[in-house]
């Protein structure tokens, strides 16, 4: 050991702060954006360590004028773009109505994905049947992009009514849709990421072709399960995509508290030996292109990809949250990557395949579909009117076959 040198400033604790707070506008220069079209597209078998440039840059396709530019342009056709627009507008309309339903006490709780719609919907469009998503509570877009998932059923889950496929056991938004590639949502953050890696390993063990897609927020990446997932994914070269949705906030804590200051979440992947991309999450085309790249890589035995989607949580964390207490009111409007719906619309109009009138008509159409679904869902009851699954349901499915002690407890409650 060496004697301490005498004249030194005392140590001090660094606690990161966002640049903006209520009453003080955010300086978004911390995001370090790249120009649309300026980043290379590597081959799908790229060596993970060589993706380091892409982990610190921002892959974008749509420029400020709505042109699709650069090597990541997926060059999709008009019909595809219209489907994408429909998926985003439907997701937005669904969220808007369910927020109102929560205020009317038809559901106890709701979480919207306002401003993040491009990520789940475009990613879903890149998946192949048989792939499995391991979502968080904010990936309803994976279900709403899929017209085979009945909105009525999703709403029955939210209303906890007699037709709730989760039988009233789960908090609203905790869906489960195995047949639609959507793993049961857990309330406990980050647990699903390592599970997705395990599912992907199983696909490899069985010499299958299926890929897993794991989802996690910026905040939840601090949990050990995320870091464990990176290690397992790298070690076994698992066919998995690890999607980190960096919407800048985790309830009231800024992404720097999760470790985003001076680095990126994508950089975590490169450090673990995983190919990593940092992508404009409000750019529908960039989301689709990056998802395709990672899926192709995974399905070709080149291993996992971590994708950080840079976006902004435009709404409250949940219906229990009030963001005006901790961030500037106009943050979402000032976010430099804009709004995903407006940006895709601008692109489609620029291409000459879309107009304001068509946009309004589609909005009306999906709003009508959502309203009709709500009417039907409400006809089966809501939590508020007590049309819920019976109490006996809570003793079912604890085990495959109900053990004697649960039968005794059910009888004690007065149910045979």
């Amino acid at each position, binding site marked *: 050991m060496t004697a301490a040198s005498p004249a030194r400033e005392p140590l*001090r*604790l660094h*606690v990161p*702060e966002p640049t903006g*707070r209520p009453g003080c506008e955010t300086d978004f220069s911390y995001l370090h954006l790249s120009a649309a079209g300026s980043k290379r597209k590597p081959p799908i078998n790229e060596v993970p360590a060589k993706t380091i440039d892409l982990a610190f840059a921002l892959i974008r396709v749509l420029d400020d004028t709505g042109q699709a530019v650069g090597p990541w342009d997926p060059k999709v056709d008009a019909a595809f773009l219209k489907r994408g627009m429909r998926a985003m507008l439907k997701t937005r309309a669904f969220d808007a109505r369910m927020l109102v339903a929560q205020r009317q006490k038809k559901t*106890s*709780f709701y979480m919207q994905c306002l401003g993040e719609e491009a990520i789940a919907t475009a990613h879903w469009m890149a998946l192949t049947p048989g792939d499995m998503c391991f979502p968080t509570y904010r990936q309803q877009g994976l279900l709403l992009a899929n017209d085979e998932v009945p909105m009525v059923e999703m709403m029955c889950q939210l209303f*906890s009514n007699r037709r*709730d496929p989760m*039988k*009233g*056991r*789960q*908090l*609203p938004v*905790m869906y489960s849709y195995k047949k639609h590639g959507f793993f049961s949502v*857990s*309330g*406990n*953050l*980050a647990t699903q990421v390592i599970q997705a890696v395990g599912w992907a390993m199983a696909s490899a063990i069985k010499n299958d072709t299926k890929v897993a897609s794991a989802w996690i927020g910026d*905040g*939840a990446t*601090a*949990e*050990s*399960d995320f870091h464990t997932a990176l290690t397992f994914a790298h070690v076994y070269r698992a066919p998995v995509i690890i999607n980190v949705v960096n919407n800048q906030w*985790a*309830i*009231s*804590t800024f992404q720097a*508290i*999760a*470790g985003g200051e001076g680095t990126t979440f994508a950089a975590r992947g490169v450090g673990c030996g995983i190919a990593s991309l940092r992508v404009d999450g409000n750019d529908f085309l960039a989301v689709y292109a990056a998802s395709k790249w990672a899926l192709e890589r995974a399905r070709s035995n080149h291993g996992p990809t971590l994708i950080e989607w840079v976006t902004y949580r435009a709404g409250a964390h949940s219906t*229990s*949250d009030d963001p005006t*207490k*901790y961030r500037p009111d106009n943050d979402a409007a000032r976010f430099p990557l804009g709004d995903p719906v407006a940006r895709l619309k601008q692109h489609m109009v620029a291409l000459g395949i879309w107009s304001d009138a068509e946009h309004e008509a589609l909005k009306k159409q999906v709003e009508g579909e959502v309203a009709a679904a709500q009417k039907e869902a409400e006809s089966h009851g809501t*939590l508020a009117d007590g049309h*819920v*699954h*019976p*109490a006996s*349901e*809570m*003793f079912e499915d*604890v085990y495959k076959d109900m053990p004697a*002690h*649960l039968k005794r*407890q059910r009888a004690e*409650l007065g149910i045979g």
Partner: protein
Amino acid sequence: MPDGGNMKTTQMTMIQALRSAMDVMLERDNNVVLFGQDVGYFGGVFRCTEGLQKKYGKSRVFDSPISEGGIIGAAVGMGAYGLRPVVEIQFADYVYPGIDQIVSEAARLRFRSVNDFTCPMTMRMPCGGGIYGGQTHSQSPEAMFTQVCGIRTVMPSNPYDAKGLLIACIENDDPVIFLEPKRLYNGPFDGHHDKPVVPWSKHPKGEVPEGYYTVPLESAAIVRPGSEVTVIAYGTMVYVSQAAAEESGVDAEIIDLRSIWPLDLDTLVESVKKTGRCVIVHEATRTSGFGAELMALVQENCFYHLEAPIERVTGWDTPYPHAQEWDYFPVPARVATALKKTLQG
């Protein structure tokens, strides 16, 4: 001063009382630091730490990453340095990623290092149901902690006790799990969810001294003296049991454990010896719940005074349901049935 004495008092909710306890301790002891998810700038999702960062600065009160293992592990290290960390786990249902740091580390550091290192720390966490929180915002995991040797488990049931107990826990040199029944944050709750909420301002225990005082650990409170049967409860179940006694007309002596483990055995034994009957009530699931330990203790210490089998009323052995909350939650009618049954026994 061991209790509030004649100090100036104010009406407080449980949230305000907890905040006041942390405020008092941050002021008195600059080794006290607070951290956890959303506790800094925002002041916690239940607002328990609101204003404290502003008052004491970011080195004393700060936000943490979302990692319960990280929060508790860092607190162990800070405790070993000589600080007295008070950490918040956002919901008790989310403590599990921190379990290894609690069970293998915090609880045994004193023992394994023969007092060379210790970690005085308080782990606050909201627990219990009654808020339509579903399975991940409703759990009562106290029994898991009572099985871990070397930690204390405490649960207040009113603002006065919440403040006095929290101060006692922060000053205590052992790691403490401090469970806060979230349904009691804004008022007592007797299990009748369809009745209007009663605020703490209408309850004598909402009257809280402004300054420093403690409620001693390992001391139970008799919240309703009675002669026919002893009810052992804690947290929200204290009010449910009181409602059950009123509604059934049974003259129950209701004991609020306050310190779940280590506990105040003398008060329990004295009461059961007097009444000869005992009903145990908790929200947590039944099998291997803390009620099982309480039944064993009563049986070991009061067997020859018992005139009826000990009864327990608990949550069912299922995950906590969302829509069927009021069939799961032990309501006064279920406690009343147990009270009457034990009188017949």
